[in-house]
């Protein structure tokens, strides 16, 4: 059970993120929901690289034991940076929409439809 705890955390975060994105009506909350989803998948990537009893993957002065996989950590860093840029752009879009439309409610931002 304990070994599966990270995967349960990933599943919980995914469900929270998806429900935020689908059910909330405020554009800022939708953006944060996407951020939570990104965090969930970053956590999944890092957890998949973990090896039981492993140390950090640094060669300098390292004892002779298992290391955790470094590639997922690199993937996760790239993904975090992409997530930052994504969130920044979505929030700046939200700001401009608020300035022009006066609302951040997704039900009312419907100028383009059908």
């Amino acid at each position, binding site marked *: 059970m304990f070994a599966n705890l990270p995967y349960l955390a990933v599943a919980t975060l995914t469900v929270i993120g998806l429900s935020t994105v689908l059910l909330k009506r405020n554009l800022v909350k939708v953006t944060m929901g996407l951020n939570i989803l990104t965090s969930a998948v970053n956590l999944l990537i890092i957890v998949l690289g973990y090896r039981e009893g492993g140390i950090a993957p640094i060669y300098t002065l390292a004892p002779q034991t298992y290391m955790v996989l470094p590639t997922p950590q690199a993937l996760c860093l790239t993904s975090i940076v992409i997530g930052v840029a994504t969130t920044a752009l979505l929030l700046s879009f939200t700001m401009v929409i608020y300035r022009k439309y006066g609302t951040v409610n997704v039900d009312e931002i419907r100028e*383009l*439809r059908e």
Partner: protein
Amino acid sequence: MALTLSTGSGFWNPVVWLIAIAFVLLVVYLLWRQGEAGYNRGSAQVKPFISGNPEPAKKAVQMPASNLYWGFTEALSGYYARVIPAHTGIVTDYLLWVLWVTAVLFLLVVIT
């Protein structure tokens, strides 16, 4: 240089088609030349003839784009009454559709 596109069960040669069309257009031109040669520009011969009634303003006879296919949209009104409201314009509905399709694909591919 092969000029014929061959699909597995047929063929299509655009250059031969163009030559055939050119021939047809030549025949059309020769027939057109048999017509009346001269006319007076600027006289009543070039104005539209609407049984002697005065011609309305240009704006009044323009058929706007929304009305051009009224018969088609009216005939398919049952279909359009369902599909057009589905395009709500709400961004969370867009995401809901993506997730629904992924769920259906999940049922089709993973479970069966």
